[in-house]
């Protein structure tokens, strides 16, 4: 509601910022779907919490690290 008291240009800027943040969230969700190799659908990802996604990201990071160390193919 506070955004309404801002000048018009500032409201547009805020709306654009929010739009970019939404795109970033969707990008992160899709990246996690890809890294989970099909075990999680986008629909599943939409109902995960921030904490769940942090844990998943940690698993992905660990797996990438293990792949690097072992020299196994990643793709």
């Amino acid at each position, binding site marked *: 509601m*506070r955004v*309404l008291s801002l000048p018009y240009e500032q409201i547009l800027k805020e709306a654009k910022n929010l739009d970019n943040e939404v795109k970033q969230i969707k990008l992160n969700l899709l990246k996690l779907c890809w890294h989970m190799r099909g075990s999680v659908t986008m629909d599943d990802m939409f109902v995960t919490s921030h*904490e769940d996604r942090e844990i998943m990201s940690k698993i992905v990071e660990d797996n990438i690290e293990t792949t690097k160390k072992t020299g196994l193919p990643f793709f």
Partner: protein
Amino acid sequence: MSEMQSGTPNPLKKYFRQPKIYIPLPSKGNFYPQGALDKTENGQYPVYPMTARDEIMMKTPDALVNGETTVQVIQSCMPNIKDAWKIPVIDLDVILIAIRLATYGETMDIELETPVTKEKKSYELNLSGMLDQLSTVNYNNQVQIDEFKVFIKPLTYQEFTKTTLKTYEEQKIFKTLNNINLSEEEKLVTFNDSFKKLTDLAIVTLEHSILRIETDEFSVTDQNHIKEFVDNSDKDFFKKVLNHIEAEKDKFTIQPLKVESTKEEIEAGVPASYEIPITFDQSNFFV
């Protein structure tokens, strides 16, 4: 996951999350119309973290302005609340802080500006402390004015949103009045009309806040009778009820942050200690 086995989306999916915290409501579950709140035995209500879908909702500009986002997210994160439009506003801050805490953790960074030097600083707020402060406040819904005992209720989120939007619209008219091509007389008419609407809004808000008026002889709950009484009562009565409503509202305001200045800041002219009001906005509340 489940869909891969059965091939159809699992309707129970929204129940997969676990509650992160349990909170008491400042209203103690009072003032909710029937069906709006599924009351618990112990007065503690589960709060679930926001899902990615909720976070996206929180970043939808139009829905944010008309209050729809807040309603959807509250109903998603506090399933005991069946109709979030009917939440008494005294519960609103506690609910939003609890959802923020359940989703992102106990602390929240806010940016402040040091007086005099205007230096920007970041402070870490403890949301648990705020919840404790707000959850223990009691709402006094009675005020004695002469022979009348007036029972009040906090506005619902729906009434609050409507009032705020209408106030904003009228204030916008005030602001733009000087810039549009109207004669002084026309401007005055528009100004008076807008001013009257704002006054009427304050009266309607007061009428919505009165639940019942009692004397030794009778008790009135009929909203039309209360409206007629308020419209015809003297200024003092109106003012006393309004003061009581304001005082109760203030009890649920978050205490300002007390900041101690450093030696260097004091030398630069900053007061040794100062208070900064805590306000939550979209940029810091739901990161």
